[in-house]
């Protein structure tokens, strides 16, 4: 089954920044519940726009969201101190978003993963910046996967993120992302591959249409986790259908259950 990380509690969205600033528990908890009801398996929490107080807010946010939903959270910050603040409050196995092969980030984030037995989103990049090719991503994965497993993280706890760049900036970014997915899947059959869906469509009209198409193409080539908007019902319906078509839904029972729950939308 595809792992769905609900992306909506992210303070780069204005309404969320406002809600976090106002400590509007009810609003944030409602959004967490709606994402969970829509099929999210993990809820992303990000409060990065409040830079000075990010760690304190993260601890607060983790409590607020886990009081509302019985799901693991994806603790989302480039700052290891913020990650730790969230991890100290988190119940169950957290997903840390993220580590990279960048020297300092690696050194400071890795002990947290081991200490808190968290799983992790591992970005295919290092201090040299964003990857520019399929080969770049493979090279980064060759540092990340053995490094993480050597430190004691099982492969099943690693979510490699090939880093998707907008199609609107360069037409080659689509095939580059898809081919990276295929190549990473071939090389690492047991690690998870994750991506933020909305990057691909930046700057283009009808972004959800591109996000949906990209999700299906990525899924077909081996992507098995997405950070997305679970309230996008056509997208969630398509992923449920794709899962059945890929033979990962025995007797199509998940697909049928989704229909019974009124979740499928043509």
């Amino acid at each position: 089954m595809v792992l769905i990380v609900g992306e909506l509690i992210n303070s780069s969205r204005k309404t969320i920044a406002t809600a976090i600033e106002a400590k509007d528990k009810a609003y944030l908890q409602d959004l967490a519940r709606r994402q969970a009801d829509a099929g999210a398996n993990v809820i992303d929490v990000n409060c990065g726009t409040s830079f000075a107080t990010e760690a304190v807010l993260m601890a607060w946010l983790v409590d607020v969201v886990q009081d509302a939903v019985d799901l693991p959270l994806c603790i989302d910050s480039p700052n290891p101190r913020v990650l730790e603040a969230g991890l100290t409050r988190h119940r169950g196995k957290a997903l840390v978003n993220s580590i990279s092969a960048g020297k300092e980030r690696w050194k400071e984030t890795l002990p947290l993963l081991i200490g808190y037995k968290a799983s992790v989103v591992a970005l295919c990049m290092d201090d040299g910046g964003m990857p520019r090719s399929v080969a770049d991503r493979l090279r980064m994965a060759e540092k990340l996967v053995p490094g993480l497993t050597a430190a004691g993280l099982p492969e099943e706890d690693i979510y490699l993120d090939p880093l998707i760049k907008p199609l609107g900036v360069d037409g080659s970014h689509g095939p580059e992302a898809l081919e990276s997915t295929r190549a990473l899947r071939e090389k690492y059959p047991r690690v998870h591959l994750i991506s933020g869906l909305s990057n691909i469509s930046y700057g283009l009209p009808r972004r959800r249409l591109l996000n949906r198409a990209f999700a299906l193409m990525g899924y077909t080539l081996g992507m098995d986790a997405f950070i997305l908007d679970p309230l996008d019902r056509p997208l969630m319906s398509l992923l449920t259908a794709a899962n059945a078509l890929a033979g990962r839904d025995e007797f199509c029972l998940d697909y049928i259950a989704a229909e019974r729950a009124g979740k499928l939308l043509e």
Partner: protein
Amino acid sequence: MQIIEEIKTALMAGNMNKVKEGANKALEEGLAPADIINDGLIAAMSVIGVQFKNNEIYMPEVLVAARAMHAGMDVLKPLLAGDAVQDRGTMVIGTVKGDLHDIGKNLVVMMMEGAGFKVVDLGVDVTTEKFVQAVTGHKAQIVGLSALLTSTMAQMKGTVQALEPYRGQVKVIVGGAPVTRKFADEIGADGYAPDAASAVDRVRELLGVA
């Protein structure tokens, strides 16, 4: 002028070859290279900038128009004898240290080039030292700082401070999704622009050029 209109239409449609053909045809008709650049290429790019700002066109349409503009420039620039077009000024631009976002910054580069400025693009993750070196080395009149993260906005402040001794020579303009006019004022920048087309307007104001 018919041919100028043809060049503008071709540029706005992103038709690189037609822009090149148009530029050559305009030269054959006896137009001055500087006039073709100003009235054709720059005028058309400025329309593109406004359309983008107003959400009438999409990012790829800006990119393809900029490519067409460059194709025209490649024909015309070598024929210029250091006249008006090149005198609009030099801008140094980059995304500040710790920040890898480049889309917005690249759009500003295109718009500034489209407006006839010389642009020195330092790329992403640019240290304060690099900005200072480039500003002095290229004798820039304007420096543009981009940041897309709240965490790197702080870096912007440091860079503006480090540029303090050169503020007589260079104006500082800042931008990027989390950046606001208020923040720009607080860190002592000369200007703030919410989008690429406005960046051109702001630079023109700051430098007092048309």
